[in-house]
């Protein structure tokens, strides 16, 4: 790792900066709409979520994926794309080739979702099991929970950071500076964690069943995390050791 370390220090601070969202109007508009959309998922579908978690979660997944995809494409700079230098006041925007631009965004977005589906979801499924999710029953429930958790945590990160190993190591070790997308991912995870707390209570409520509370926690956590990461803790870095 010593060689890698030297390259890191030779590459001054660049990867350690937080990432801003694109500063155009559509981006800002959707970035503000995005938490509202996500937050409305739970109250709208809560009843059916409680009655039939599997089908509800399955039905919701494409919608959430779409919302997340639009968020990535519209609001976020994709991998390698230099963060927008274009918001100096007075400077005119270069309107390049719009068609190519779109493809340059859609392809990474598509890849992000493929990775989310085939890499993050299984990993989160295993993690959920390790945390004590039922081992021999409720497989579909747990898989769909993992899917939703994955949809809220990783597409934006894959989209922005690609598959750069050192960035991902920083992400998993909580050393990446906090920004909107990272905040959202962390928020979703913490929310899911907190969502497990009311399950054992003997209130005998229907909504205490697996995995309703966790799904609610994940969505609420993602939105809170996004807001906190985007405004309050922007650029902050955790000191873990």
């Amino acid at each position, binding site marked *: 790792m010593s060689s890698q370390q030297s390259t890191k220090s030779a590459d001054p601070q660049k990867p350690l900066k937080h990432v801003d969202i694109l500063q155009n109007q559509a981006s800002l508009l959707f970035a503000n709409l995005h938490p509202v959309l996500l937050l409305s998922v739970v109250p709208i579908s809560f009843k059916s979520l409680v009655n039939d978690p599997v089908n509800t979660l399955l039905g919701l997944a494409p919608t959430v994926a779409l919302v997340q995809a639009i968020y990535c494409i519209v609001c976020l700079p994709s991998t390698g794309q230099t963060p927008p230098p274009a918001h100096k006041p007075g400077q005119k925007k270069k309107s390049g080739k719009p068609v190519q631009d779109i493809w340059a965004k859609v392809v990474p977005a598509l890849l992000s979702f493929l990775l989310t589906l085939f890499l993050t979801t299984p990993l989160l499924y295993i993690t959920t099991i390790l945390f004590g999710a039922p*081992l021999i029953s409720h497989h579909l429930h747990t898989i769909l929970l993992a899917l939703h958790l994955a949809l809220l945590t990783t597409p934006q990160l894959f989209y922005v950071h690609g598959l750069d190993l050192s960035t991902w190591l920083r992400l998993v070790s909580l050393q990446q500076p906090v920004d909107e997308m990272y905040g959202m991912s962390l928020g979703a995870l913490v929310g899911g964690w907190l969502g497990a707390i009311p399950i054992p209570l003997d209130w005998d409520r229907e909504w205490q069943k697996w995995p309703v509370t966790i799904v609610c926690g994940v969505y609420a956590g993602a939105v809170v995390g996004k807001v906190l990461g985007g405004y309050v803790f922007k650029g902050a870095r955790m000191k873990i050791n």
Partner: protein
Amino acid sequence: MADAAAIPSKADVKAQNKQRSLQFRAQHGLVVAFFLLILVFHVLSIYLFLSGFLLSRLVLQDRSECAVPPIDLSNYTPGSQERGCWHPKSFDKAVVILVDALRYDFTVPFQASAGDAEPHYFHNNLPVLYETAVKEPKNAFLRPFIADPPTTTLQRLKGLTTGTLPTLIDAGSNFAGTAIDEDNLIEQLYLAGKKVVHIGDDTWHSLFPGYFEPNLTRPYDSFNVWDLHTVDNGVNEHLFPLLEPSMAGRWDVAIGHYLGVDHAGHRYGPDHPAMAEKLRQMDEVFRRMIEKLDEDTLLVVMGDHGMDVKGDHGGESDMEVEAALWMYSKKGIFGRDGEGSLAPTATAKERPVAQIDLVPTLSLLLGMPIPFNNLGRPIAEAFHGSSKLLQPDYRNLAEVSRLTSAQIHRYQGEYAKVRKLDEDATSAPAKLWRAANEKWSTLSSSEKALKQAYEAFTLYQAENLSICKALWARFDLVSMSMGLIALVGTFAVIVMYAQGVNGDRAALTPPLLGWGLMGTAAGAVAGAALGALPIAAMPTLTAFGAATGGIVAVLLGFWPARPILTWPFPKTFWGWLCFMSTALLCVGFGANSWIIWEDEQLLFLLSTFAVLMLGASLGQADRQDQILGAVNALSFLVATRISSLSRLCREEQARNCRSSYYASATSSTSAAWQLAIPFAVALLLPTAVKYFFVRTKNYHGSAVIWIGIALRLGLIMVASFWALDSADDGDWLPQVSKDTLKTARVILAQIVLAVAFAAGYATYVWASPMLAVKTEEAPEKPQSTSKPINNEDPNAPILTTINEAPQPRSKLIIYGYANTHGTRYFLLPCAWILALILVQKPMGQGALALCFISILNLLEIIDANNLRRSPLGPIVLALLGMFHFFKTGHQAALVTIQWDVAFIPLKTLQYPWAPLMVVLNTYGPQILCAIAVPTITLWKVPPKHPGLLGRIAGQMATHVLFYAAIAVATVAEAAWLRRHLMLYRVFMPRMLVAVSVLVLVEFVGAVVAIVGVRWSVVSVGDVFGWPE
């Protein structure tokens, strides 16, 4: 290392080393003493709290007398033994049979219900009681017989002979019962000159020493739950001769106490062929007894408690309290009060009688006075008094009821006088008493009026009983508050010591200890002086004075050291995480659900730590650390989850939990496949431990002898032990006698214990550090390095060149230098694990082995992330210990105590070994984790590292801090929720676990772990010299 420039002479170095070694030994002794002082504070505070919390009842010494009835008897002259003391007697003799754990549903025909369509092994195998009650209703009746919890035999015997309610303070004394010192039926019989014979369970003899006929009485050891037949066969052998006509006149009351049903429950669970066989045997016994019984003898068969689905008891669940009572005589004097009560009820929920009701019933039937403290009421069937089966003589019923009520009233008067009770507490029953007496005095002889009088007296008895129950559920809030204050104060001391010191704790400890001892002594004297005044209790005040005096003095002792103190708040990410998880658990224990599901929460918390440690390791800059940390974190995660598959569900979890600890949910033996676990452990565990030693090149000398040979052989013996045990259970070797199997087993277990403790400690004490020194040809040019290379990288073999500059010589390579301390100390947990695994059931052995591997994983993760000074290590170890407490087949409930492990190395019950084995079994994981705590500091630190002792003390204090926090929280919550419905089922057991585990961990931490550090550090210091 400072004197690298001026090389000191050999003699100087030697003298200096000697002095430093002495200094270490002195400081070490004082650190151990300081931990013991904290232990004393805790013991005092827990004593104070529990003496106020565990309910107490004043025992009145008054005795009822034959000639002094509690109330004027208008038409009967009291005082004659021949006719009956207070009421005409019905029987001269009685045979009282106690079938331990005879649950009511064992005795009635099985009735299919939803979810329970087929009869179990415990159904329909003891039909004689039901048959006779149906076929000869005048001769027999069968009723549910409800026990007052706690449902332990000792407590039940007290209830069944004194007629009064049990108090919790006695619940723990099942292992060593003491004589009953209040009025009771056995004493009454004895004093009246009746000859009482007892055969069976020897608990009776500790309760009633000297009251039984010495020639005919045969006591049997009661705690050997592995033995189903010795006691029962003995009772049969000695009881049946008594029923022969030739023996008439040699006894008046014969008590037989059968234990087979109880032991079958404990050992196999109720749903097992052994239980069916046992019940059939009992059936046959009672049929024979009926045959032999003469006209004047009453036969009583009863259970003292029931058993839960697994066959255990002690708690207050329905199945545990529902026993059966059957009375039989050939006189035909029993009856019923109507069609509805003709046949025995199908379940124990209908028409139950309380167990204390036996006392007045039996007393009056045998013509004895009712014991003074009795609260029970006479059972109607037994005082039927009429020749018509369904029409009781209400005059007789009203008379016995009036007598009983009057005795209760007399007792209440005395009790109120002694306790100085206010009118309120007694006004409601007093009104009922007056009303009932009025009905009696204005009695016409009409059936209806008599019935009303009878019912009025019964009402008084019921009301009185409920008042007593409420009254004796009274807590001594003063004592409880004292205990809580002392507990919180001790907690403050530990917090400061563990997290508030930013310097060398070892140097700070001596003054703290000095202050503490003086404070304790002064406080004790002050408390005793105050206690000498008549207003307060002496022991309570002395204990409180000693604890608070000591605590305040220690806290004051911190004052001079304030330059090295900091606020004991978490300062790092890991610190916060540790704080939050502990706090979350503490707060959660305020709700019964979180206590019930504690095992799942601990899995959740441990996984959280493991995932974050995995992430943190991946973020390490050094590639070696990254891989080391990540792999070990993954191993930790997987080991924890696999361990979590071993579960023993508590009753409250039932709906969402499947037990896997035993063969089935209704058994308490291991399944055959589970026998593979001990063998797998024997095969894999030493190899796994060896791997961690090999990685740092420390697998030499004592490590090879202990881990490679002794531990492996020991574990193979453990596995053989459990194989033999299963062979015995399942009758796999019919040609070998049970006794041979047992002897072989016991010898194996004793050898394992000897290997673990004698050989293990000998190896540990005398081992030299596990190093290998190799000589290589030195290079041509002599090297000029003069100090050992302190390589930061712990994994590469470390190369040290020692050379005293001038002469050219060969090079020494020391293998295992980097982890000298860690591996040297780790021999101690390696010795203990063998003994701890022996006393676990097969499933628990797997869990404990995984716990051991998780500990090693944790050590590597801490090294990779350099978190030796973080609270992470001690707190995760504490979580790990608590988690595996559940994974070794325990719950925070009395029923899950595995009493039978007392017989692993013993054939008969022996003190103090039997309780010691139970403790090792119950708290094995916590003991193991506490012993592992010093390793956090010692793992992979170079030999001459300074300040180790102080840091070990800090880590141990942090470890204790976790348990202390849980203890404070559960104690406060139990006190706060003392009127909660779930107090005795949930909050109190958890509190008892918390305080007992706290005391135990503190003791083990000081006496095993920190004391053990001495040998390991001294042996390393002797080889490498002492740090400054």
